[in-house]
């Protein structure tokens, strides 16, 4: 695994406009960065990333199975008590999932370690599934990259196939896509998923999360006052379960993508549970709940809120001293503690691997780079190749 400088495609910004990639630059800073790329060997991809990703996913599912059956654990995961049955039933009924992204620490050698599991609302999907795919094709066609260069990225293909599978359970049903207002990135991600669902033959409609309505007979409604029965939401369960309409989730009987049990899979409390159930697993970092910290013998660790997004409210503690902390509005629900395992540095960049799954199949990676030790939402997206 190494980082190479490469000439940017001439006029890629025009191409981005043509394909509707509107958020390649955010807050005046580059988000998509094709001035360099990462190169992996096939062995690194298959042995160190693909196989562990699938194994980790199966381990995570075992945690869910344990947590839903245990009231104390449901409490530790900060699931509001009135929704325990709802979450549990969703798991026991086998509600289908679409996708997730695991963040891995990996620098080309040794075992990749799981940082966290973004199993509910992962973004950077379009950049991964389509845009870096197009970059590789363009650079190969321009003679800038070897014809044999490949990419670990079957994301778009697998998502379309997965939608085709899900459609079998929802014949003739409209699939609603939803995200919050005022974010180009989320809107772009949801539009991409809608395009994939359309390619799978599903009829789709879009509605903003804030516009979802509640009918007199406890259905969720769209802006035409029609019942919503099947919906993809790029909006976290941990928020939804605490909002006004959470009372009617059960009676509204929507089939959600991602399903309610993802509230457990995407929860940071998953990390100490994994360590408890699979101690010393090579792809796990030692992780602990607050009440276990004393006996954990952790000296260097990262403190993460149970619910947080985009690297907010994270602090790094080395030999008992806080050496870094990121601001943010999270932390009310408590924290977990994870052994400090710094991101590998390539030059003056810290690099994080996002490893994607479609249902339970590893489907590709995304590479993010930051000048900062904690990857935040403004870290740059870098393309990669396998050669």
């Amino acid at each position: 695994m190494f980082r190479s400088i490469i000439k940017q495609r001439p006029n890629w910004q025009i191409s981005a406009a043509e394909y509707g990639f509107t958020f390649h630059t955010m807050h005046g800073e580059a988000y998509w960065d094709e001035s360099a790329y990462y190169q992996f060997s096939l062995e690194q991809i298959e042995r160190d990333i693909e196989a562990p990703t699938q194994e980790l996913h199966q381990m995570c599912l075992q945690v869910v199975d344990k947590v839903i059956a245990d009231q104390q654990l449901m409490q530790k995961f900060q699931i509001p008590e009135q929704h325990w049955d709802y979450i549990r039933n969703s798991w026991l009924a086998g509600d289908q999932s679409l996708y997730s992204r695991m963040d891995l620490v990996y620098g080309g050698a040794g075992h990749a370690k799981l940082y966290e599991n973004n199993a509910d609302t992962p973004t950077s999907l379009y950049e991964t599934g389509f845009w870096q795919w197009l970059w590789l094709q363009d650079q190969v066609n321009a003679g800038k990259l070897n014809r044999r260069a490949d990419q670990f990225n079957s994301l778009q293909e697998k998502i379309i196939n997965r939608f085709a599978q899900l459609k079998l359970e929802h014949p003739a049903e409209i699939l609603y896509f939803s995200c919050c207002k005022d974010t180009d990135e989320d809107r772009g991600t949801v539009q991409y998923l809608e395009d994939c669902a359309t390619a799978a033959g599903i009829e789709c409609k879009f509605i903003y999360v804030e516009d979802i309505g509640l009918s007199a007979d406890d259905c969720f409604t769209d802006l035409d006052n029609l019942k919503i029965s099947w919906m993809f939401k790029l909006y976290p369960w941990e928020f939804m379960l605490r909002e006004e309409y959470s009372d009617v989730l059960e009676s509204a009987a929507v089939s959600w993508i991602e399903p309610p049990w993802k509230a457990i899979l995407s929860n940071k409390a998953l990390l100490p549970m994994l360590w408890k159930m699979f101690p010393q697993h090579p792809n796990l970092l030692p992780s602990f709940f607050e009440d276990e910290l004393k006996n954990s013998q952790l000296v260097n660790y990262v403190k993460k809120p149970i619910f947080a997004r985009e690297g907010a409210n994270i602090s790094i503690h080395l030999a008992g001293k806080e050496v870094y902390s990121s601001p943010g509005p999270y932390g009310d629900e408590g924290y977990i503690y994870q052994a400090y395992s710094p991101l590998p540095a390539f030059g003056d960049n810290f690099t994080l691997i996002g490893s994607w799954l479609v249902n339970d199949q590893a489907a590709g990676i995304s590479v993010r780079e930051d000048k900062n030790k904690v990857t935040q939402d403004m870290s740059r997206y870098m393309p990669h190749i396998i050669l």
Partner: protein
Amino acid sequence: MKRTQSIDLGVMRKAPKLFAFRPLALAVTAGTLIGCSDDTQEAQVYKSVEDCISGNPGQTEQCEIAYQQAEQEAIKSGPKYNNLAACVQDFGAHNCQSYPVQNNQSIFMPLMAGYMFGSMMNGGSRSAPLYTSYSRRSPAYGKWTSTDGNLFGSANSNKIRVNDKAFKPKPTVRRTMSRGGFGSTIAAKSSFGGRTSRSSWGG
């Protein structure tokens, strides 16, 4: 190969599609589309059961059943309003009726002005409710319109051209009591740090 085999780039292009394929007012253009489509058929419009029977001697029972079906479909799929004024604005004065629902509340729906009646190949018949508007500001003024807002030409005419879809039952229209019950958390979290625009609520 570890990557997606092929992607249809034509499908992925966004910019030109926006202008070419997004009708702004579906309800209004649908009337035109139906007129020039090949699989349309002529449907007879009746304003009452008697009207239907006089047009179809010997089919009293079919006319009655068709009327009842249309009425049921109207209640299920017809336009529903939370207040009388909104209904009157779309359908005109003395053309809206209140229906009691739970908690001593009422909803308002336009009166069914007629129903279309078509025969099927197997000898049966089918029907669908029609409305008209007496409000000059409404696009349905003086026209026949269906539960989903399609316009079918002048309400003076007792024949309209429709396609098969016009007879199909429409999804039930709900009465939405409130909106905004999801999304409140972001309002609280967004104010953090005074950042007015943000990138993602995913991660």
